[in-house]
Structures are given as C-alpha cells and as structure tokens.
C-alpha cells in the first residue's frame, strides 16, 4: 500500500511543524545519499521553498517523503524525539 504523506502530516501537531520541517530540511541538504532523491520530489521541494510553503501540509509531505528516502534513520529519530512515535509506527506498518 502506498503511503499517503499528505494525510500523514495532518497528524503532526501544528506547534511541532516548524521545528520538524527545519530538521527535515537539514537531513535532506546534508545527506550524502543524493542519488536517492527523485527529481519530482526535488522540484516539488524547490517549488514549495520558493513560495514559502515548506511548512504547509503539502510542503511537509514533500519534506517527509524526501527525508525518509534519503535519511530514514535520522527521520525516525526526529519523530521519536518530538514525541510523534505514532507517525513512526504508521510509516513502518506500511
């Protein structure tokens, strides 16, 4: 089953979105796994960044999907650290 990232990010509490998106951007930009980034996601990330939409639900969905592809362990750790283990569980289930 394909993970619906747009639906998944609705579970992120609004007050945690800023700090979580910052962490995700950092994981993506400092990752050495560049080749794992699909160009459609890369372009979507740039579009959202250009239009200040990275913290919107669609922007968060792009970041989360990208970070999970490039740096899954770091992303799971950040989810746990921010007490969002329910999202980790949901991702791992699928």
């Amino acid at each position, binding site marked *: 089953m394909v993970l619906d990232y747009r639906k998944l990010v609705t579970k992120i509490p609004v007050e945690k979105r800023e700090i979580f998106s910052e962490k995700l*951007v*950092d994981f993506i*930009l*400092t990752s050495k796994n*560049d080749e794992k*980034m699909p*160009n459609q996601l*890369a*372009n979507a*990330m*740039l*579009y959202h*960044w*250009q239009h200040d939409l990275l913290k919107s639900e669609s922007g968060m969905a792009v970041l989360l999907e990208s970070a999970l592809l490039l740096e899954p362990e770091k992303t799971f750790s950040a989810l746990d650290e921010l007490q969002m283990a329910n999202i980790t569980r949901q991702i791992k289930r699928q």
Partner: protein
Amino acid sequence: MVKFGIEFVPREPYWKIIYYAIQAEKGGFSNLWITDHFNNRNVYVTLTAAAIYTNKITFGPGVTNPYLVNPVFTAQATATLNELAPGRVVLGIGAGDKTTLESVGVEMAKPLTAIQEAIDIFRKITSGESVAYKGEVFKIAGASFLFKPRGRIPVYVGAQGPKMLELAGKIGDGVLINACHPKDVEYAVNCVKEGIRQAHKKLDEVDVAAYTSFSVHEDLKKATKAAVPVVSFIVAGSPSILLERHGIDLKKADEIREALKANDWGKAFGAVTPGMIEAFSICGTPEMCIERIALLLKSGISQFVVGSPIGSNVREAIDLISEKIVPHFQV
C-alpha cells in the same frame, strides 16, 4: 550601498544549489554566481534551474572561460537564459584555470587578447549583429542568431593579475576580483581604476566585486576548519610573488602542492597556517567577518561575493550572513 553576491560550485546536485540560491535571494543577496568547470555539473543547466526557482536575484556564470567554451556558445546560452529571466542575467568571464585547461589539452594562449576578443564577439552577437571576426585568437567566418536576443547582458571580467584587472576596468561592466586580503583588493581596485580612467568611464559605471573564499560560523574553530581545504588549494595555485607578498613560506606552499598532487589531504590541510587563512580567506565569527568586509569596502568595492566554502553548514552559514552580516552594511 554594497551588494552581496554568493557563489556556488555545482559539484552538488542542482536541487541543493537551488535550495541555497532561493535562501540567498530571500536573505538579501543580490547576485548569484555559479562556477564553470568541466568536471562539475553544467553551469547553464544549473542557472536554468535558478532562473525558474528564483524571482529577483541577478545570476550568471562566475566565471566561464573562452578557451573551453567558445564565446558564440556563451552568447547563445546567456541570451537564452535572458529570455527565461529577462534583465537578471550577467556574464562572468575570465581566462580560466591553467591546470584545468591543460588537463583537457587546451592551451591558455594570449589570455588578455582572448578575453578582449571573446567579449567583443559576445557583445556583437548578443546585440543581434552578424559577426565576421578575424582576431588573433578567434576567427569567425560569419555567425548570427536565428532569434532576436532580448536586451543587453552585462559582462563581468574575472581578474587577478594587474594587466587583466586593468583590461577589466576598461572593457567590463563589472570586475570580479579574485582576492580576499585588503592589501590585495586595494591593489586590484587601483588597477581596475586605471582601466576605467583609460576608457574615460565613471567609477560607478563598473560594478567592482571582491570574489572571496569565505567561511562563517559562530564558533571560530568550525569556521576555520571549513576554510582550510579551500585555502590549501588557493595556496597551491598561487604564484610565488603573491605568496611572498603575504610572507608565506614557499617551502610550506610546495609541501601543500605536492601533498595535493598525491591526494594526501591530511598532509596538505595540516600544512595550512593561520597566515595562509588570513591571506586567502575571510573566515571567522560574523563579527570578525564584518570587520574584514568593512576593510575591503574602504578599497572601493561595490559588491562582496561570498564564495566557497561559505561555512561548515552552508544553510546555517547563509542564515548567519543574512541575519547578522548583510543588515550591518545596509544601514
């Protein structure tokens, strides 16, 4: 008021470079420069992405060279970019790096003449003229675009030596001075001014930029650590006269050169001294960088270009520059 420019090397994938470019635009930078080396990703593909994902920043190759890239092709690429982002495109052109050119069997012959002719050809063809050219370096039987170029593209000349700096002042709309130390920048600006004087232009008609190796971090050690590899390459590529001007031990410089040739990074980076970092980079906390930039401004530069490495974490460094350094010079 001084403008801030930023340089990126497209060794990284386009989406990282463009993320930083958007960030720089939001943070108050006015110019984006992308380096052009055959062994990195292509400069014009990267600039095309920049044209699409940015809205107001001015951008261009920083710098291309006329030996590996024929000026007719440079004109075509930049004129097409100028359709994507009208009025935001500039050309940075210099003689290139001798070692890189030699590695692909290209000789850097008559650099002053080559730059002068290349700019002449570039300007003619981008203004819609048909070009027949019999130069010492370039010979064109007859070339013109089958499309109408959209507006004039300013030309910045990348320069380091006195004659090239003078030529840059004479024929350039801008100059990219490859130097960091106030002594070097002051000397370079004086050469540029001489060229401007000879061309009977006004000083403010030429955008004079210091194109620096820059590294900023709140922690000086981290800023320095990021600067060391870049400085080692600058030292290795610098002529003895320049090293001596900064009191750098030539034997130490040779040691670095040999270690880099042997890919012994540890030895090369370990041989970099604080004096080398001082001479060939602007490196430190935001406050230290502000002090150094202020010294360069006294020489008469109108653009300050933040070049590689920028910082140990590029995203954090751009934020630091945007929040602490750029505003300092905008009051």
